[in-house]
């Protein structure tokens, strides 16, 4: 395997020309020990982080590709660019962005200013005007909300304490890869007792760094705190890179509550392989709300480790698999303490030759009395060609556990469509209405504007006009 050299000499740099702007840097394709070192050097990271990255790189080399899930055999790690810094310069020429993506922005009503950013044709989205005032308010309360690179510079102790504590590099090959080459992501710290009223929104609505393909997000909710975090948007995220591999680590301390909402809609060339995990301590509640659309393959199983008595996990996810897509998603909850509760709702929709898989694990360890778990998977097939499968692993080692599991597979029924049509609603609208009803348990948890976008997006998927 010959790796292209990563030379960060002048040849490879594409500098910006104004001196208040950081130089634009794009690495050659491919990954080596030097790539990892270079990433760390460019960011002037402390030595422990460089070491952590290098160790993770070794683990990445050793670990096999996961073979228990979706087909990942076509991923070529040598054909990926591992570091891009495009501070103030556009990464993609707007003219090169595929027409169907532009059309989708149009149909979703995404503001002009955000469209170019979403397509990678603009590196910065000016969110100051929207968030300036809020930012001040958060800071007064001691909330830290910055990109993870900034956090490493400005809050090194906190980052060092928690980085990799929930998802260690050795967890899996892709978590190792992320640890080795991570850039960006959000870092969020909520001090004791602070309740953040509005959802904190990442991605284009807050800063650029989140857009990365190897972002590392960390949330630390201190005792009694409460926060909602939203990442992503319903517009298709266009990227020429074919691998998105993020890691999200969350710590919910005693009595805290964290809701993490993700809406992702990647363009059809992307492998979306994400490790998301939370630890919930005494009486804390962790909620994952996760929507997966687009991509070529998505493998994502937001998980919660219930560490102490009374901790609670709520995971609700939806996946829409269109032709050429495999959504292999689900959830994992490990009950490591007595009287812990979990609830998993998974909804999938498959269309055309799309395939959706629910893969989940609920594990209740021996001696953990009084645990409850409720798992519900509903799959909706829109036509004959679409497919779904379900792998609900439930491992119960304690006899006092109360477990409920229900799985349904349904087809969009002619009876339902005819019924709605008989009330004057045209066939296409009737279908959309039924599908939006199917995912309603999910959309009702979203802020209104996202719920509206989500329903609109499903309609676009149904028209087949989304790339």
């Amino acid at each position, binding site marked *: 395997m010959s790796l292209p050299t990563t030379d960060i000499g002048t040849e490879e740099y594409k500098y910006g020309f104004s001196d208040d702007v950081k130089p634009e840097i794009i690495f050659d394709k491919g990954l080596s020990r030097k790539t990892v070192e270079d990433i760390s050097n460019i960011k002037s990271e402390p030595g422990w982080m460089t070491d952590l990255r290098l160790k993770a790189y070794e683990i990445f080399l050793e670990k096999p590709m996961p073979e228990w899930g979706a087909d990942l055999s076509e991923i070529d790690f040598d054909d990926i660019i591992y570091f891009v810094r495009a501070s103030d310069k556009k990464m993609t020429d707007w003219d090169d962005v595929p027409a169907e993506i532009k059309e989708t922005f149009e149909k979703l009503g995404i503001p002009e200013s955000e469209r170019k950013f979403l397509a990678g044709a603009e590196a910065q989205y000016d969110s100051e005007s929207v968030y300036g005032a809020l930012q001040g308010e958060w800071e007064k309360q001691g909330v830290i909300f910055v990109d993870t690179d900034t956090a490493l510079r400005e809050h090194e102790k906190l980052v060092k304490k928690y980085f990799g504590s929930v998802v260690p590099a050795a967890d899996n090959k892709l978590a190792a890869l992320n640890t080795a080459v991570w850039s960006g992501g959000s870092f969020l710290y909520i001090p004791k007792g602070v309740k953040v009223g509005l959802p904190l929104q990442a991605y284009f609505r807050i800063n650029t760094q989140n857009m990365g393909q190897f972002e590392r997000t960390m949330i630390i909710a201190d005792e009694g705190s409460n926060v909602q975090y939203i990442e992503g948007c319903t517009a298709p995220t266009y990227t020429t890179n074919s691998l998105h591999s993020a890691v999200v680590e969350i710590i919910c301390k005693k009595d805290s509550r964290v809701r993490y909402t993700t809406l992702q809609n990647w363009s059809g060339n992307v492998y979306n392989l994400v490790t998301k995990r939370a630890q919930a301590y005494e009486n804390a509640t962790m909620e994952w709300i996760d929507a997966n659309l687009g991509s070529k393959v998505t493998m994502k199983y937001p998980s919660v480790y219930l560490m102490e008595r009374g901790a609670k996990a709520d995971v609700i996810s939806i996946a829409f698999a269109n032709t050429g897509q495999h959504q292999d998603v689900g959830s994992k909850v490990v009950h490591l303490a007595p009287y812990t509760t979990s609830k998993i709702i998974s909804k999938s929709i498959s269309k055309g030759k799309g395939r959706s898989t629910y893969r989940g694990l609920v594990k209740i360890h021996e001696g953990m009395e009084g645990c409850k778990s409720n798992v519900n998977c509903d799959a909706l097939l829109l036509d004959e060609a679409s497919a779904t499968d379900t792998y609900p692993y439930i491992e119960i080692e304690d006899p006092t556990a109360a477990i409920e599991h229900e799985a349904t597979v349904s087809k969009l029924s002619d009876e339902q469509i005819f019924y709605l049509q008989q009330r004057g609603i045209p066939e296409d609208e*009737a279908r959309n209405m039924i599908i939006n009803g199917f995912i309603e348990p999910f959309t009702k948890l979203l802020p209104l504007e996202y719920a509206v976008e989500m329903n609109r997006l499903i309609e676009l998927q149904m028209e087949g006009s989304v790339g």
Partner: protein
Amino acid sequence: MTEKNGLLTVENLKVKIGDKEILKGVDLKIGPGEVHAIMGPNGTGKSTLAYALAGKSSYEVTSGSVTMEGENVLEMSPDERARKGLFLAFQYPSEVPGVTVDNFLRVAYNTIKKEELSIWEFRNLLKEKMEFLKIDESFSGRYLNEGFSGGEKKRNEILQMAVLQPKLAVLDETDSGLDIDALQIVAKGVNELLPEDSSVLVITHYQRILRYIKPDFVHVMIEGRIVETGGGELAEKLEEKGYDWLKEKYGESGKDSD
């Protein structure tokens, strides 16, 4: 072939489901404001007529014609027929999880009436009809037919009829499974919540509902044909004598020769 006085004209309608011919040439004329009843034993094609009028795709029309105000209904999609003013109260309405009664009905109303009533305007309209039909307020926020009792489903169908104000309401066995109180409320809804010139086609096995919804015409269907037509007195005769005498006269052993 516009009929000035006709609302619905059905001529020699033949309908197949799969390989089986169910309707074997039905003729029916309904004028504006008229109440018609189709009675008959089970499995004789009454509900098939209702579905065929509404345009269910698995019901294949092999010959005949159906016109509404002179327009060819058979060329219209089910939703076009509904927008034209044809309403079918289903015997077994579908459940649609996640879609609330009020949202669904507002979309239907706006589509049929070509209006854009806001959520609030529509809620007032709905509330009024719900009160009339003695339906609890919380009902409008429930998911369409999901977990509804048999009686709630029927009442929900009549609520929809009352909101959508069709020109022709076809009630498919709406009386089945209703207790006498519920039946009276439903009948009152049909009698008082529709516009004067709206027509009603009541499909029923029993005469019971016709005590409350007075028909101008009663038709008896036997083996896919309307074999007798009369006034309200025909229903009473059937109540008294049952269907056997008609089956004998018009059934398999009787004439059936095309």
